[in-house]
């Protein structure tokens, strides 16, 4: 994973295409496609029903437009909703049986999967287009009762857990893209940490889009039972193509009493070229529910890719004394657009939330923070602190801050603050006159700007996140 992010080439290093024979469903979506996806994954009936209900509702909806982003209408009938390497059709029993070409792809992405090279401290589920290629370290985890597998596998092996939790945080009718995902979701990861277990290693999913004209609709569900804890990391890349590809995922997190879930994302989907051609539309619904008392959900995201990012990892603070956190660095360059932030919904008593958002906009990009802090009438003693800072690099970009505070309880203490700054020539010159080269100077300034977020990432990721930002900024500054 380290190398995957520590990429100093000016070009997007992950822009290559893996040459494998791919099976794709015909373009377009209808009930038959939904049924075919479910059948291909050998899902239990209730899942098919779940998908069909979502699909029927979705058909009646129109796409939302409220985000501060611009893009031509998406033709939802011009997308392949399922694509998988043919070699995965016979469901390899272990990673040893997986097509070496696929394994080589993940090697190249810096996520080696085979036993002798794989990362020791992280269990990885590798998702390639619509299927999971394999999951490492499953044996060690199983000993502790931790379930970590692809969503498809979970649907077959643990249908009762899926049935119990799926769609309970993000209902299929939550919004247009949630409904679409609920109808056609392909693969993703399922994590279950039983009562009292502290997951000993980080769990990670690596998402790779490879096939052209294909949407990726992954689904991730993480459940931490009473007193359990887990740290989960996701990473993502895609080839460079002139077309825009849709990635519409759902992530649901559920934390019971005293449980804690830390979810970190390093998102580096292809963001399009300097003229805004190509790149991924990253329209994702991520939401966690602090179901239990004293539970905690923490989102950290480093958003450095995608032509358009439109997502708000959120926390519903239902349990008394529960804690929600959102730490974000969003960098946009070229013509990228991001409208991202969070929602903190305070319902239980004595709940608290923290929002730290750092937006960096460069070139001709547009970077917006949008966030909601809502305190419901019964949420006594709610606390929120939000800080949303923007940095502008270059004079053609935009940095916007759209916070919403809706406070319906007198005992709440809610504070929001935001600032806008830039890397000025004067600052660079000052640092350079003290012996730093321009790259080091920028790194220092950006690091300083983002340090409150980086320090919440698992150590190896924070190092890589810094490098990733430096690389992206290098073209934009000076």
């Amino acid at each position, binding site marked *: 994973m380290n190398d995957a992010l520590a990429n100093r080439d000016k070009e997007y290093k992950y822009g290559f295409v893996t040459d494998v024979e791919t099976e794709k469903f015909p373009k377009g979506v209808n009930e038959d496609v939904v049924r075919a996806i479910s059948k291909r994954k050998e899902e239990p009936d209730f899942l098919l029903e779940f998908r069909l209900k979502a699909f029927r509702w979705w058909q009646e909806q129109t796409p939302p437009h409220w985000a501060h982003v611009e893009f031509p209408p998406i033709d939802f009938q011009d997308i392949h909703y399922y694509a998988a390497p043919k070699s995965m059709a016979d469901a390899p029993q272990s990673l040893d049986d997986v097509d070496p070409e696929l394994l080589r792809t993940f090697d190249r992405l810096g996520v080696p999967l085979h036993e002798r090279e794989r990362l020791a401290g992280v269990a990885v589920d590798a998702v390639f287009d619509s299927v999971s290629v394999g999951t490492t370290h499953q044996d060690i985890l199983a000993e502790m009762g931790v379930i970590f597998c692809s969503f498809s596998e979970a649907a077959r092996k643990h249908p009762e857990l899926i049935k119990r939790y799926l769609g309970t945080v993000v209902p299929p009718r939550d919004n247009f893209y949630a409904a679409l995902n609920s109808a056609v979701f392909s693969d993703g990861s399922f994590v279950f940490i039983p009562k009292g277990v502290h997951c000993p290693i980080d769990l990670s999913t690596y998402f790779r889009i490879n096939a052209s004209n294909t949407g990726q609709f992954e689904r991730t569900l993480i459940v931490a039972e009473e007193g359990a804890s887990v740290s989960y990391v996701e990473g993502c890349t895609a080839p460079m193509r002139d077309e825009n590809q849709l990635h519409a995922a759902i992530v649901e997190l559920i934390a019971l009493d005293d449980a804690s879930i830390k979810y970190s994302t390093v998102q580096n989907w292809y963001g399009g070229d300097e003229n805004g051609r190509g790149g991924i539309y990253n329209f994702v619904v991520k939401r966690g529910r602090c179901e239990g008392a004293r539970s905690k959900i923490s989102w950290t995201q480093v958003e450095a890719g995608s032509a358009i990012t439109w997502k708000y990892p959120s926390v519903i603070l239902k349990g008394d004394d529960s804690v929600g956190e959102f730490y974000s660095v969003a960098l946009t360059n070229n013509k990228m657009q991001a409208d991202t932030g969070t929602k903190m919904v305070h319902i239980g008593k004595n709940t608290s939330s923290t929002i730290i958002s750092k937006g960096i906009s460069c070139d001709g990009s547009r970077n917006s923070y949008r966030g909601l802090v809502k305190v419901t009438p019964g949420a006594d003693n709610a606390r929120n602190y939000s800080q949303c800072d923007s940095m*502008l690099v270059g*004079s053609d970009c935009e940095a916007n801050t759209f916070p919403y505070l809706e406070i319906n309880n007198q005992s*709440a*203490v809610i504070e929001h603050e935001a600032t806008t700054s830039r890397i000025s020539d004067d600052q660079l010159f000052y640092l350079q006159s003290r012996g730093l080269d321009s790259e080091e100077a920028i790194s220092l300034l950006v690091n300083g700007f983002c340090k409150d977020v980086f320090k919440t990432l698992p150590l190896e990721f924070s190092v890589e996140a810094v490098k990733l930002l430096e690389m992206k900024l290098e073209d934009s500054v000076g």
Partner: protein
Amino acid sequence: MKRPRAITPDAHYADQLSAVLEAMAPCESAGQLAARQAAFDRFMEQGIPTRRVEAWKYTDVTRLAEEVFAPAAPAPLTAETVTGLPLYHPEDETVVFASGILQPGLSRHPEGSVLELHPLHTMPDPTAPVPIHDNPFVDLNHALWRDGALLRLPPSTTPAQRIHVLFVHATAATPTLSHPRLLIDLGEHATAEIAITHVTLGDKACFNNATLDITLQPGAHLELVYTQVLNQASTHLGTTTITQQRDSTLHAMDFSAGSALARHSLSVALAGEGASASLDGLYIVQGRQHVDAHTCIQHQQPNGSSRQLYKGILDDRATAAFSGLVRVHPGATGTDAQQMNRNLLLSNDALANSKPQLEISNDDVRCTHGATVGRLDDLELFYLASRGIDPTAARDMLSRGFAEEVLYRLPDTQRHADLHAILNRTFEKNDDTTT
């Protein structure tokens, strides 16, 4: 089914237009009458916005689509009544409107005053309205206004007296509707202190839909006090649009304590280099009152500065919304913008919404904003208690202090005292209801 974004207004609005066109035919040009019709068509086309429209997210005005209003007729107004109205001072240059109609007999225009007052009907071509998105009520005002005035100060003048424009809205058994329209133009390097006050007579409902357009020519300075103290049954929708040219300066006090529903949209365009605007706002709501303070500052040219401090005090089941947008255009280098909204909740049933927004398209700027919602500080309450002040008195003192922080910024001590008096009455009224 999703709720619609707008509702078609009731037919009585069209009746009112017919009546206005008929009444105005003798005194207005064909062009002016056509402009009214065009504005009305825009209003009907847009309809009354529902809360699905972002600008109306926190304020529900849909009942205005259905409720039937009678056009306001000016009730007989005496000089005695006027002198007793809030912010009235005999030495001021006073312009009185009764239910939207100018009352020269009650106004005071001192001999030799530099202020020019032009009735709007006699203007060959009223200043073209700045198009306002998401606000069909401006179009409604431009279609249905009965009377209005342009106040103009010639270049480099400073009136000897303060100017006070008093809008008195008489209420009657049938809810009345008025559309006050006022234009103010400060010439180059002119300086003025102007207070705009909206007040009701009687305790029945009225709906006033006011527009105010202000232009500050280069180097002009305006000290503006906008006060809304309608009775608790009424609705006030005010749309104020201010355009500032080079090096002009504005200080505005935006004070709202009345109305069942009040929304004041205050837009400032810093259209010339080096212009600066400073907005202070205070809203106080109780019972089931709702207030919406809507500000928009457009930094269009380099080296402009803006500062906003809006504070709100909410009691009982009242609701309030602050929406403030600071927009920095691509060419506006050297912009310095600060915005702060603070809300104090005195009751567990009050609801405060705050939406401070920054849209920045230039990297050479210094912009900050902040928002807070909370109750009185425990430590401050203890500090006062430790000096012998009982909890009720301490709460009262701290709430007033919270408001005073805004009022302190009024340089005119008499105006400060005026607003302070309204503030005191509001708090006293509140004490009556709680004891």
